[in-house]
């Protein structure tokens, strides 16, 4: 059954504009559409009426790039679990629903336009230590030459599935980035290749996280529930251990 919906969408011309919520109507929305396809329908409608289309971020539209940062009906990526906005289906909504759509809110994620936020603070955290320094030119070592305990390999892999979407920050009442940084720290801390730079990595990444203006975690667990990749709070605990151990050393 196709749906008629009312949308309340945050419109903001540019970074310095004050912005406000604006109401729109869309009709004949198929439950099989993705949420972004529904927004495409709205934008087509706006363009046909010579109005400015709603700016929103997206790229892969298959849950891997982490661009589609929308806060839908009070939740990051909407009411479904384990999905990004592009993977959210319109069958999660009913005919006649009113849907509130806002950008991810955090001082460290300033709004660029409408629903688009600048998440380069995450990139700067990664630059501060989210890597290992290895020479990859011509002398690549066979992966199987370094034995790794299965549990550690699995945990490192799970941590590495973080796509940097920022839903954790958006959902957190404190706008804390600890789930993201916890995942990025854990991904390397669990592996022998990452241990060499472990001390500097955690100190530098946490310092960058704090400098960017993210808040302090109070363990509400909202991030873990809203994370499209199911990144576990255990990663935050591991980062805390790594950080405290590193502070004693450094």
């Amino acid at each position: 059954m196709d749906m008629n919906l009312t949308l309340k969408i945050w419109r903001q011309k540019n970074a310095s504009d004050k912005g406000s919520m604006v109401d729109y109507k869309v009709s004949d929305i198929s439950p099989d559409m993705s949420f972004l396809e529904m927004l495409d329908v709205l934008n087509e409608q706006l363009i046909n009426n010579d109005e400015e289309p709603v700016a929103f971020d997206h790229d892969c539209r298959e849950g891997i790039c982490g661009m589609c940062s929308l806060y839908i009906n009070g939740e990051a990526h909407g009411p479904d679990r384990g999905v990004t906005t592009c993977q959210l289906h319109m069958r999660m909504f009913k005919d006649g629903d009113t849907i509130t759509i806002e950008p991810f809110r955090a001082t460290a994620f300033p709004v660029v336009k409408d629903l688009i936020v600048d998440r380069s603070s995450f990139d700067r955290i990664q630059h501060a230590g989210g890597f290992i320094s290895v020479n990859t030119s011509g002398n690549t070592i066979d992966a199987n030459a370094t034995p790794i305990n299965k549990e550690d390999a699995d945990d490192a892999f799970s941590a590495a599935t973080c796509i940097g979407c920022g839903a954790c920050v958006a959902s957190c009442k404190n706008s804390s980035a600890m789930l993201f940084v916890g995942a990025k720290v854990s991904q390397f801390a669990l592996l022998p290749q990452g241990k060499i730079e472990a001390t500097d990595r955690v100190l530098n990444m946490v310092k960058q996280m704090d400098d960017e203006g993210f808040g302090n975690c109070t363990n509400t667990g909202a991030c873990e529930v809203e994370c499209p990749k199911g990144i576990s709070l255990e990663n935050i605990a591991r980062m805390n251990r790594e950080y405290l151990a590193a502070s004693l050393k450094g």
Partner: protein
Amino acid sequence: MSGILNSSIGRKFAMALSALFLMFFLLQHFSINILSVFSPETFNDVSHFMGTFPLVQYVLQPVLIFGVVFHFVMGFVLEIKNNKARRISYAKNNGGANSSWMSRNMIWSGAAILAFVCLHFYDFWFPEINTKFIVGDMSGLIDPNNAESGFRYYEELQHKFVDLWRVVLYVVAFVFLALHLLHGFDSAFQSVGANNKYTKGLKRFSKIYAIGIPLGFIFIAVFHFLNH
């Protein structure tokens, strides 16, 4: 180590340490208070010991006061910092979808406990300090000039729980304490980095502690109200 309190994780860690200390103190405080229900004599003896033993008075008591003050000051500091991390709030936010009410309202349950701590100091701590250090009566007796008069602690305790309004305030405060601990207990372990195979069991124990201890305190207050 330098400047650890300037980092988010350092502050979390310090917050958790002060909280773990307070939870240990709460258990100790409860153990002594519950004696008043079973044996006024034992309660009196232990109270006199706690009230006059130098290690408790001059070392543990200042540490405790520092712990309490540090905990709530840091609580307010974190709250202010966290509010700055999101200057524009959501038009629609469904917090209940992903987190508990307790976890989102630690500052309010904390503020309620702080208000209670003020009343509690007014009720017991200030009179105690006044008797011991201003009046200079370290005897612990009802009548300091009569060794036969017995210790005053149990009598003072009973006297406090005569007014219904005070009992109601104590009960309400303990409900907030339970709400605070229902999130806080687990949270403190996560903050110090302990999240492992024991966490599940710990979470079960935390429910018992977070509800049991405040309920026990409520029982003591109501018991004395009904039996004075």
